[in-house]
């Protein structure tokens, strides 16, 4: 893997990990890009304030970088990152007077549900990588970045009237890709 004009969308997590271990800076940038939303979402689920969330975010990637060589199963990078981030969030909450660790069963239940939804969302993101770049971009802008039809139309040079149908078409493709990958139906609503 050389870092030039690399289309990382088709590269598996395990291959990215192996390239990182081989010292490819481009692979590390991809690993951060690929998991940054996941780590960020876990800090949000724990309701850390912005300063603590940023500290946990940076510390998580620092530890990933330092300990990547010890990862026994490259396929297990995502659960490893999830576990590491959750542990750092809990450590941060324990050290904070303002934001105690959730300790009632209701609070723990809310946190568990939020984290389960984040994990499911990551599986959807993985399915998204199988879509065309155009579909990935429009879905990301509309749903993840909360951009309006007008903004998307201006940025992608599309008439706003066509945005809704394009989103709908891409969402349909995503549903097929997601169900094909996991055999799971997102309609269950189970997080």
């Amino acid at each position, binding site marked *: 893997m050389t870092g030039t004009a690399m289309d990382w969308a088709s590269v598996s997590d395990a291959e990215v990990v192996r390239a990182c271990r081989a010292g490819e800076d481009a692979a590390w940038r991809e690993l951060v890009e690929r998991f940054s939303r996941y780590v*960020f979402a876990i800090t949000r689920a724990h309701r850390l304030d912005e300063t603590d969330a940023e500290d946990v975010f940076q510390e998580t990637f620092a530890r990933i970088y*330092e300990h990547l060589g010890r990862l026994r199963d490259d396929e297990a990078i995502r659960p490893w990152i999830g576990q590491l981030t959750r542990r750092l969030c809990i450590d941060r909450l324990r050290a904070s007077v303002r934001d105690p660790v959730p300790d009632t069963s209701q609070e723990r239940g809310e946190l568990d549900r939020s984290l389960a939804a984040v994990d499911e969302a990551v599986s959807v993101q993985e399915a998204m990588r199988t879509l065309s770049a155009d579909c990935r971009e429009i879905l990301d802008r509309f749903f993840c970045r909360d951009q309006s039809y007008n903004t998307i139309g201006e940025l992608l040079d599309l008439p706003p009237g066509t945005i809704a149908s394009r989103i709908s078409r891409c969402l349909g493709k995503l549903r097929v890709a997601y169900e094909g990958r996991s055999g799971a139906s997102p309609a269950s609503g189970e997080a």
Partner: protein
Amino acid sequence: MNENPMDEVRLSELLRELPPAPEAWVRAAQERPAIARAADQVLELAEADAQFRRELIADLEEALRAAGHEPDPRLVETLRRRLPEG
């Protein structure tokens, strides 16, 4: 949106669960290899120079400045984790 609209409602909810992290955070994390290389250089120097090693342990930021390194907080934090105590 199609014959099973609930599927796509749930999918859109899940997409909204993962907004992008702030760009500056992502950029800083992506610079980690450069920070690690700088830390490696400092630690190699400390390995070869016992006096520098003692200075690092006594006052990390000042020792870095004296050695001509900008005490970037990420470098300091990395060295704190990697330097043995005492």
